């Protein structure tokens, strides 16, 4: 009975928001945003961990909740989502934007699913859903600046997803089984984990906005509404960090050099966050620096874990706590700032330079696209055209027609002569 209950709860947790995302299915329900969170809440209330295998799903997937980081994160997530739901809920007199609710629920489903996933593909699937869902949240009903920022985010998301996809492929090719535990074990003993590690590290670093890859984070914080900023701090970044923990064979593998570099980067990130954050005048962006700082801390810890597996095993729980509290901390800050601003500051003016980083990114992308366009659109079809389509023009050529005409006329006029020549020809050939 208990297993049935927990299994159905596990499935319902991501499924219910997903279903409710269809407007038709929730049109009669009051406050669907909250209802969608119910299974997760009940799941949190269950005393022990639970898991369920779904071999028919995707490539054989599963859902589960473990005692440690998963539960923590789930709890934080639920909390954050409830706050966000409250913030998003329209004030009296305003009509609810139905689409935003849908986006909200989609993102929610992705988030909860990613937290509960027990294998790489499941995690990947849900986090992708969450990523795109989150993008829609960012874009919905905002101004140009935030849209541009969101577009940068989207590109980051795609690139990161691609890298992670490769990573999953490599893992599958090496391990054959995509359960987190199996992957960690196998990758830990793998002879050449380099590419996998690189993909996972860069992929999640992009998603989490770890220091040198944080360029998308600032414009977003600068432009979005509080509710979305709250989620931004808590949800995608936290899930990305969770990805590090789940995907990397931490505690199984010892890579001192890489660990040192990562540690260094983490420290650099912290320094950067502090320096830049202090110089930063806009309150609104402050949470971004805090997020960068926190990810820096986590990165440093992870680097340490990579160089010294034993230490990781010992202090791993600490990292989990960090992830969990990061979400909470940033979220509270955002809410606080929002509240502060709402009380005392006038609304921030739209930023002129809505993120330099976003601009250079677009610039390069545009240049690349133009180049590709020139290469692909201009040269190849022309090559092809020469030998197939232009055949028609060749056919219209006057000389052809004249040659055919005169040939036919000649044949008609010298009919008998031709016969004679053929006759001779046959005789000659034969004799």
């Amino acid at each position, binding site marked *: 009975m208990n297993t049935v209950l927990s299994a159905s709860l596990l499935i319902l947790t991501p499924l219910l928001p997903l279903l409710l995302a269809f407007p038709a299915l929730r049109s009669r329900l009051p406050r669907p945003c909250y209802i969608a969170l119910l299974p997760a809440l009940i799941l949190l209330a269950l005393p022990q961990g639970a898991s369920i295998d779904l071999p028919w799903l995707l490539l054989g997937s599963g859902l589960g909740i473990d005692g440690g980081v998963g539960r923590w994160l789930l709890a934080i997530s639920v909390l954050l989502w409830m706050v966000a739901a409250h913030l998003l809920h329209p004030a009296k007199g305003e009509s609810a934007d139905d*689409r935003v609710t849908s986006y909200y629920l989609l993102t929610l489903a992705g988030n909860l699913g990613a937290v509960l996933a027990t294998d790489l593909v499941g995690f990947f699937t849900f986090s992708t859903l969450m990523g795109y869902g989150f993008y829609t949240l960012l874009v919905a009903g905002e101004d140009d600046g935030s849209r541009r920022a969101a577009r940068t985010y989207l590109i980051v998301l795609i690139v990161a997803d691609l890298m992670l996809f490769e990573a999953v492929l490599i893992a599958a090719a090496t391990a054959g089984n995509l359960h987190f535990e199996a992957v960690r074990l196998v990758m830990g003993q793998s002879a050449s984990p380099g590419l996998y590690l690189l993909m996972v590290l860069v992929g999640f670093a992009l998603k989490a906005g770890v220091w040198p890859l944080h360029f998308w984070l600032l414009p977003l914080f600068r432009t979005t509404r509080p509710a979305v900023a709250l989620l931004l701090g808590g949800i995608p970044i936290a899930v990305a960090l969770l990805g590090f923990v789940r995907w990397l064979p931490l505690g199984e593998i010892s890579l001192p050099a890489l660990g040192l570099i990562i540690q260094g980067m983490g420290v650099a990130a912290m320094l950067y966050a502090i320096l830049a954050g202090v110089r930063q005048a806009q309150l609104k962006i402050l949470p971004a620096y805090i997020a960068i700082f926190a990810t820096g801390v986590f990165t440093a810890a992870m680097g340490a874990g990579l160089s010294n597996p034993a230490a990781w095993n010992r202090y791993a729980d600490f990292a989990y706590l960090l992830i969990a509290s990061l979400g909470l901390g940033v979220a509270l800050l955002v809410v606080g700032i929002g509240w502060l601003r709402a009380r005392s500051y006038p609304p921030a003016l739209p930023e002129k330079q809505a993120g330099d980083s976003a601009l250079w990114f677009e610039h390069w992308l545009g240049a690349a696209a133009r180049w590709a366009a020139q290469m692909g659109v201009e040269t190849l079809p022309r090559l092809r055209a020469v030998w197939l389509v232009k055949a028609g023009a060749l056919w219209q050529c006057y000389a052809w027609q004249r040659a055919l005409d005169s040939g036919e006329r000649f044949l008609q006029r010298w009919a008998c002569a031709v016969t004679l020549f053929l006759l001779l020809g046959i005789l000659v050939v034969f004799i």
Partner: protein
Amino acid sequence: MNWSAALPLFVLASSLLPGLVIFFLPEERVATRSSLNLAGAVLKLVLAGVMVWGIFHGSHFETRLPLLPGLDLLLRADSLSMLFVVLSSILWLVTTVYAIGYLEGSPNRSRFFGFFSLCVTATVGVALAGNLITFLLFYELLTLATYPLIVHRGTEVARRAGRTYLIYTVAGGTLLLIGTVWLYTLAGTLEFTPRGFLSTLDGASSTALVIIFVLLIAGLGVKAALIPLHGWLPQAMVAPAPVSALLHAVAVVKAGAFGIVRVVYDVYGIQFSATLGVTLPLAIVAAATIIYGSMRALFQDDLKRRLAFSTISQVAYIVLGIAIVGPIAAVGGLVHLVHQGVMKITLFFCAGNLAETLGIHKISEMNGVGRRMPWTMAAFTIAAFGMIGAPPLAGFISKWYLGLGALDAGQGWVIFILAGSSLLNAGYFLPILYAAWFKTPADAWPAERAFGRRETAWALLAPPLVTAFLTLAVGLLASAPFSPLQWARFITTLEYAE
């Protein structure tokens, strides 16, 4: 002739006979025509289902009619053909519904539906062909049945597109014919055999076999729109939307891709092909096609044209999956045969809906269309994400197996092709979605038609929703029994079994 020998014939007849009858129906007999069409489609689906069940339980379905001395007209249902037959049957049913709605009130419908049925007959024939000559027969029939559909509108553009189509396909068919005859003179048989019938051939020079391979692949590559033989496809999108849908998803391009699968697997045999050294060039061509098609798609403003280039890119996945010699990649290629069909047909349905309901043909006109037609655009979104390869949709599964297979076969470069393609896919699909959902709509649509309370007619709306649902389902339930993925695995175990 017993039941199992007659079944493949019945499957063919279930669309052929209605098609022939429809030709002679007067234009205004709409109800008769529609019910004939639908009855045929449902019947075909049922028959295909029966066959799938039978094959899974070890039965054989084979019809053999003498064609030439030593060469039979052979229809045989094996696991690979059933994959394609079932796909065609399902999508035909859906497309029929759609076409009935789409063409309501337009002229020359009897002609259209007649050729439509012929087209599906040819496709199913291609699927069921048990030897190369039967394949060739239906392959050419497909060319002929499709041409009237492409030029159906009768405009100058349509005629030009039809002409281009013919130039390409007739030339391709000719190459195929040469290759087939040559092969026959060398091998003395043309019957598809698992793991090929050429590897055991003594004395045939491998040069000749390589040339034949090139001929066959070139002939099939025209329909599969491999570069540089793809020129007809973007032009052919002038056809009515159901035709484009069928053309891109099932009939023409798939017939080409399916043929390549057949040639590589059941004529040459994958191991023998690899020995001959022809698979790597094929893989490179496919890879180039993938990238090139996506690049071209990026810069199209016409929605259907963009989708057409996307097809060029996507169909090459199938070829790529085959050309990477390995069981896992093969699964990816085969499953993409189905998945691409389901996804692409959704996209074309949606494009058709936009054109038919709002008069939208260009992407630049699509701003905010998601608010006007949320269901259509939802379906479009799902399919587009599927194309990009976002999990858990259909495209993800294909790419997954392709990538995994490439790694398995030690061809890591394919991974980067996949990644690049996904990136480009995202590059040309996401702006559409963005425009549709988030941009503010223009004041008026180019040519709006009212459909009462609904966003568009039922017959237009239901098909894309069904196929979008399928896109989701085949990805999500990929591991369930009888899913395309499982079936593709079933096929590859046969091919790669030792």
